[in-house]
């Protein structure tokens, strides 16, 4: 809706009724389940004026519980909509009233904070107009990402390091799997080896493959009718679950005038990245008549884009962003990561998005050719110039140091408490945490009303994180000192250290978390809890509620795999959460001579990188041996029994090149050492697996991935010989 503020709205109660329904949508040609609100995705655009009272009736007509959070809006704690933390969830078939005074202005949004519902369509714009607004026409766009896969499936697969998402990306854009074949084609084999040596999976800027990117629920949206010279304010909301977007305009520079709802001193830029859940307001100028100008949002992985067309007529395009130079990025990561998995910024003091290590992957900044390997001694790393996008190119890219508040934002004089948050993560097992603790593993952080809270955040993980604080604005300390900007989302890139601070002026419990949906659900967050807060009427039993909240990141994820081959069945099953793992493996021959074998163990991952896992388990095997036949292992230990049932204890450790070493001893006193590497990506779809152990058993297998569930497989196994078949993966 093109909003023309013609009248000054008086202070009043503004009522909206939102009807949440289960619905079937079709964005891609396939029908999928989703949530619609008042019949639409995104949810309806809500407009208020500062000073109003918002009265929002949520009628939950779906079968699921829901809970709506008003993102960036200052309100009483029990209205915040974090289920079980601030507000009771709304059961299906009931109505809930959210009512709060509107005490601010700007561009905000609202979304479901319940489970993964946000990915399924529950996001919308929440616009608060100033009492006296400048007479510019304005338009709001809500950007989002859509996947045909159920969000639950997306989440489960992420935890199982399933690379189906990368294969789907590679269908759109060659090389996205970063297989060994891709590495050879890019003449970067050494880089790929270096990467696996340091125990990293493929270099990626985003985890999830999306089938569609949407602007207000459409691939392309349009606002018609402008004259040359017209200026329009576009409010941009990133309502996606896990996609960052590059925003660019084909009609010239964009004038950034607000971020996360707060005004900033206008700054003209060629492009900016909008983190998940951030909002930016830009003023665009229409350069000529009878032409439509493109405001394009390209996902950070550059796989897809979505556009808003401003004006009508012949369409002025903007060039697509060229594919990322993945192996340049991989080399950069190899240089920055230490053998123990920690990151090393080489003394560059990175902060505020100024030094984007990813520029090495951006062809438009650093050229399209592969960088030559020449020793260049005086390439002074310390000032990190080679990563400062704005010094490398004519293209002006916004960063947080360029944001300046038009008014002083200094906090009132008060005692300041300082917290150090290290953002930690483990890509292989998709564990995301702060100071290596998830929400459920950490205590609430107690703060006092009246004090100032300063948080120094260091991102020691390999991905960027949009950290969002509920119910407060924080200052992002930058070179503008007293005029540092106010925001409620801080995008922090790997290796960066940023400082934010806020005045503790509220009461109750407030969530601080990464706004990448799947990171949040994995436990990347903290709860700030005001001491001596009055009881929350929404949550009569706070302890029980808190357990429900904690259940999110304690969730176990299930995985199953079986290879149906000519020489037997080979399979495994896993049930895992942040720290615990229950694994079962089996090898079932088709005759007693081939034998049957199962192993079940339960282990706990230790340490930040989770390379180390001690376990205990139970093995059972049956193999009919020829009379006089004995089995002997590397240590000279002998076995003559047909059937064995033993308890065992062992440790698994992930070695460089992602080889899993498994050492164990069983109740018969037998030792076994096993080395295994699965899923070596040879090409886009071909995977190699290798295994060897001290019982002289070995295996080599190839898998060709057909789709998300089935692969063709062929392997040679020392017990069962050669076999071919297909593998089913869940």
């Amino acid at each position, binding site marked *: 809706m093109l909003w023309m503020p013609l009248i000054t709205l008086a202070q009043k109660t503004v009522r909206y009724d939102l009807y949440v329904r289960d619905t079937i949508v079709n964005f891609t040609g396939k029908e999928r389940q989703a949530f619609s609100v008042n019949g639409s995705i995104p949810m309806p655009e809500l407009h208020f004026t500062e000073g109003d009272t918002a009265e929002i009736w949520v009628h939950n007509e779906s079968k699921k519980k829901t809970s709506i959070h008003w993102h960036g809006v200052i309100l009483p704690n029990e209205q915040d909509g974090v289920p079980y933390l601030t507000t009771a969830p709304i059961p299906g078939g009931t109505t809930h009233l959210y009512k709060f005074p509107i005490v601010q202005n700007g561009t905000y949004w609202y979304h479901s904070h319940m489970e993964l519902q946000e990915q399924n369509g529950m996001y919308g714009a929440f616009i608060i107009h100033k009492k006296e607004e400048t007479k510019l026409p304005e338009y709001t766009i809500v950007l989002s990402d859509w996947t045909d896969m159920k969000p639950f499936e997306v989440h489960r697969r992420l935890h199982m390091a399933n690379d189906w998402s990368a294969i789907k990306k590679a269908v759109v854009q060659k090389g996205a799997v970063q297989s060994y074949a891709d590495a050879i084609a890019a003449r970067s084999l050494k880089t790929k080896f270096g990467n696996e040596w340091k125990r990293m999976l493929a270099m990626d800027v985003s985890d999830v493959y999306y089938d569609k990117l949407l602007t207000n629920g459409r691939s392309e949206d349009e606002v018609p009718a402008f004259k040359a010279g017209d200026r329009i304010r576009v409010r941009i909301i990133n309502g996606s679950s896990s996609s960052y977007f590059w925003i660019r305009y084909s009609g010239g520079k964009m004038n950034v005038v607000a971020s996360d709802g707060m005004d900033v001193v206008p700054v*003209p830029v060629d492009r900016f990245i909008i983190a998940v859940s951030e909002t930016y307001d830009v003023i665009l*100028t229409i*350069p*000529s008549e009878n032409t439509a100008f493109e405001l394009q949002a390209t996902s950070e992985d550059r796989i897809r884009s979505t556009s808003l067309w401003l004006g009508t007529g012949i369409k*002025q*395009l903007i060039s697509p962003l060229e594919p990322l130079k993945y192996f340049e990025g991989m080399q950069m990561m190899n240089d920055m990561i230490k053998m123990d998995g920690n990151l090393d910024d080489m003394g560059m003091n990175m902060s505020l998005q100024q030094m984007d290590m990813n520029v090495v992957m951006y062809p438009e900044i650093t050229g399209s050719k592969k960088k030559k390997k020449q020793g*260049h001694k*005086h*390439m002074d790393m310390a000032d990190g110039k080679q990563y400062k996008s704005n010094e*490398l190119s004519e293209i002006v890219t916004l960063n947080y140091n360029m944001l300046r508040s038009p008014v002083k934002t200094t906090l009132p004089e008060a005692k300041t408490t300082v917290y150090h948050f290290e953002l930690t993560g483990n890509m292989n097992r998709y564990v995301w945490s702060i100071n290596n603790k998830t929400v459920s593993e950490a205590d609430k952080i107690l703060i006092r009303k009246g004090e100032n809270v300063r948080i120094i955040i260091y991102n020691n993980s390999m991905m960027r994180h949009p950290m969002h604080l509920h119910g407060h604005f924080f200052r992002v300390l930058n070179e503008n000192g007293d005029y540092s900007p106010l925001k409620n989302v801080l995008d922090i890139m790997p290796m960066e250290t940023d400082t934010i601070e806020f005045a503790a002026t509220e009461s109750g419990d407030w969530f601080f978390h990464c706004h990448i949906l799947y990171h949040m659900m994995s436990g990347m967050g903290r709860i700030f809890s005001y001491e001596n807060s009055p009881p929350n009427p929404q949550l009569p039993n706070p302890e029980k509620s808190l357990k429900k909240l904690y259940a999110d990141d304690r969730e176990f994820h299930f995985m199953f795999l079986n290879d149906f081959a000519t020489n037997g069945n080979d399979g495994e099953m896993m049930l895992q959460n942040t720290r615990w793992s229950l694994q079962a493996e089996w090898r079932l021959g088709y005759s007693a001579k081939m034998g049957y074998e199962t192993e079940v163990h339960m282990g706990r991952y230790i340490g930040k990188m989770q390379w180390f896992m001690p376990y205990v388990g139970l093995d059972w095997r049956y193999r009919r041996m020829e009379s006089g036949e004995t089995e002997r292992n590397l240590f000279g230990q002998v076995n003559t029994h047909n059937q064995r049932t033993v308890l065992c204890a062992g440790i698994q450790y992930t070695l460089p090149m992602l080889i899993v070493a498994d050492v164990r001893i069983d109740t018969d006193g037998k030792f076994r050492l096993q080395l295994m590497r699965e899923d070596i990506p040879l090409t886009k779809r071909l995977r190699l697996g290798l295994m060897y152990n001290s019982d002289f058993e070995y295996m080599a297998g190839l898998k060709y991935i057909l789709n998300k569930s089935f692969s063709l497989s062929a392997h040679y196994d020392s017990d069962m010989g050669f076999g071919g078949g297909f593998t089913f993966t869940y």
Partner: protein
Amino acid sequence: MKKLQHFMLGMSLLLAFTACASPIKNAKTETYKVAGNCDMCKNTIETAANKKGISSAEWDKDKKVLTLTYDSKQTTPSEVLKRVAYAGYDNEQFLAPDDAYAKLPGCCHYDRMKKETSVAANPANEQKESETVVNEQEKGNLLSGVYDHYFALKDALVKDDGKTASAKALALAKAIGEVDMKSMSSEEHAAWMNVSGDLLMHAEHIAETKDIAHQREHFSKLSQKIYTLTETFKPGETTYLQHCPMYNDGKGADWLSKENAVKNPYYGSSMLTCGKTTKTIR
């Protein structure tokens, strides 16, 4: 045997025929206006528009019309015209991105379909625009064309873009040929004649190849000559002499730049900020 040969010949002819004849199903043919200049344009436009089995197109250089045959179930004319625009060519539905147009070789720089009425986007831009105007008035220099194209060439080398470098060098060679010698004083004329032959030679060498290493060799010599000219012909704006100590096995090389920040044309992205400013020419 003979019969077999005939048969084979017949089969191969048939194959050749079916390969030529468009195998496009659900075919629709329509014509669209597409801007362009020359045979090179024709090649680029058609390459962008063709997609095996889905769309095939022919562009008429004189009429500036694209005859497009496409599979109406698989694609739309908009999709095809979008690709043509991304390749740098304005057409009746899409205007090419400015950078795509700029990357076209010199001979392909057709007159764009829409002359944008430039509008001051915001106060910051207004200021910038007025600055440029002032600079252009100040310039009034006999060699401004030569300098401009030199800087464009340097920028292309900074971006490791051999293709653009080649195009810019061609434009530079042209500008060298068009320098107005009649308006020169005798001192200026002598300075110009001293180096113009070398300048032309190096520019042409750069234009002839897309091999960036070779272009850079010539660029280092070209830069030396250009620098000698700045004594006599002051560049319109402040210009910086910059030096990379690494190039040519440590012998080093110079270049001129309009900005003080170092962007190395000899190594491009691999060590963009290597080097330092050794002299400021005002």
